[in-house]
């Protein structure tokens, strides 16, 4: 596996605990991770000039701007449209979401192994686990 310079994993989920768990777990594993509580906040952070993330983990049901609307905006924006997105949803119609949003979709709840697989696919193998005994 090639080691890539990871610019971070962006977690967009309105549930603070879920978001923090993802961020913390990924950080523990050595991936830089940051988050936003809804689509609008996420777009703001992506457009503030900081380096763009390797992958976005996107929740579907969120207040203010949901996953669907965020994805539509993102695809319209030439600078952001190439960032890969993985949708995490409890929604039953996985196929429908895949087709509509043109993304990979995983059904919630996802396991640690699935989370690490996403990270490894898009960011490569972590080089320096931050957490150490």
């Amino acid at each position, binding site marked *: 596996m090639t080691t890539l310079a990871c610019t971070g994993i962006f977690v967009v989920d309105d*549930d603070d*605990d*879920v978001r*923090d*768990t*993802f961020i*913390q*777990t990924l950080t*523990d*594993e050595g991936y830089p991770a940051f988050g936003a509580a809804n689509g609008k906040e996420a777009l703001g952070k992506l457009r503030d000039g900081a380096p763009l993330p390797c992958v976005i983990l996107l929740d579907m049901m969120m207040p203010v701007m949901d996953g669907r609307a965020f994805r539509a905006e993102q695809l319209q924006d030439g600078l952001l449209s190439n960032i890969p997105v993985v949708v995490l949803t*409890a929604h*039953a*119609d*996985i*196929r*429908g979401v895949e087709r509509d949003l043109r993304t990979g979709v995983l059904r*919630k*709840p*996802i*396991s*640690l192994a699935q*989370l690490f697989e996403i990270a490894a696919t898009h960011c490569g193998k972590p080089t320096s686990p931050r*957490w150490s*005994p």
Partner: protein
Amino acid sequence: MENAAPVILLVDDDPGVLETYRRSFAQFEPLLAHDGVAAQTILSAFAVDVVVCDLKMPGMKGLDLMKWAREHCQPNPEWIVVSGEATLDATIQALKLGAFDFICKPILSPMQLRTAVTNAARHKRLLAEVAERRALEVALRESERQVRQLVENIADLAWSATADGRIDFYNRRWYEYTGTTFEQMEGWGWRSVHHPALLEQVVERWTRALATGEPFEMEFPLRRADGVFRWFLTRVRPLRDADGRITRWFGTNTDIDEARAARSERERLIADLRQSVEARDEFLAIAAHELRTPLTALQLQLEGTAHLIGRTSNPGNDKLLGKLAVASRQVTHLGTLVNGLLDVARCIQGRLIIETEEVDLAEIVRAVVERCGPQAQSAGCALIVDAEKEVKGRGDRTRLDQVVSNLVGNSIKYGAGQPIRTTLHAVEGVALLRVEDRGIGIRPEDTARLFARFARAVSSNSYGGLGLGLYIARQIVEAHGGTIDVASEVGQGSTFTVRIPLVGPPAERKREASS
């Protein structure tokens, strides 16, 4: 009857006279009697209209015969007495007895006698007609009296109107209820006891019925004497004569106020109930969905913690990891229960989505049996599989796995430690799956509701679970266009049979056909 020839009886002791009579009345085919006794016999046997009778006869005299007839003949014929001068007294007596006419001997011409007989016959006929008409009138009056009495005493308000719709009769109940008088109600006066909101409609419907001659039915309120409006069901029918012309209208108003109130109360209750059920289902969906989110975080935290601990080599790690594994299993179990609730909510709301792909049911069955191994082992049930190597068709892998897991899981749960046999075969394009146990079985009265929501055949004290599994299983199987049923005997075990068409769910086939 009017055209029928009169029946005539001729009585005379003189055969010559009788013969003369007979010839005179040949056209009427008269009856002949040569004495009173013979005449009695004839009068007893036939309804005679006119008797021509000689007064002076040997044996029974004419007068005696008349007296006898008055008592025994019903109706009594008309009598024409024939007498000589010597019997003037007798003639007078005969007239007193009601004789219609008398003729003196010798009879001068047959014409004289024929005229008398014809007159007597006509008189008889008229009398009969009058009597008949009188009887009819009496019957009619009686029948009218009975109808009136009936109408006056029925519980309904009732009325009748002329052909053009003027009401000219109301029964007693109408006046009792409305507290009005005939003068106020006559013709179209009834409008004053109607509710203004519906009056226009009532008048329109009544006018239309009058125009078309169609009977009409309508519910509307009528004002009671105390001003309270109560609802009535009104039925109006036209009465027609023999030619089909409407002669009168007859209407009844039946008090349905309580029935109506009960009906609207029932409708309200049903609406409430439906709303409550919908609210419950909605709550179920939201609650299940909300419960999953923290479970996601919790599961990840547990796995993450175990992951981190695994990187260290502290003593006591094994104990910590063991505890985490138990916690993780419990969270998984909780997740399964919550998923069940969510599935039920989806089924109820018709949002159970089947994602079809090419699947091998045999592979699913083997995977499920393998996964259930530990559970079966701890329950002491041997799992026997008799499946074809490959049963391929179109279906939702995850959902079908759920069905098989549920059936095998149930069998282990209720299998009483006896072997469980799972068979799978493809028969004429249909996958036939059987899960058979020799456990506690199901009572016949419970099998019917086994596939209903929240149903369980055994007490929840001894066996856990929400009772959703078979309900969801059935929904999934039916969404695949298949069937699920059970055969069971208490103490002998149960056999669940699932049949699923290998071509896939009907909805998918329809979509493919149309695209």
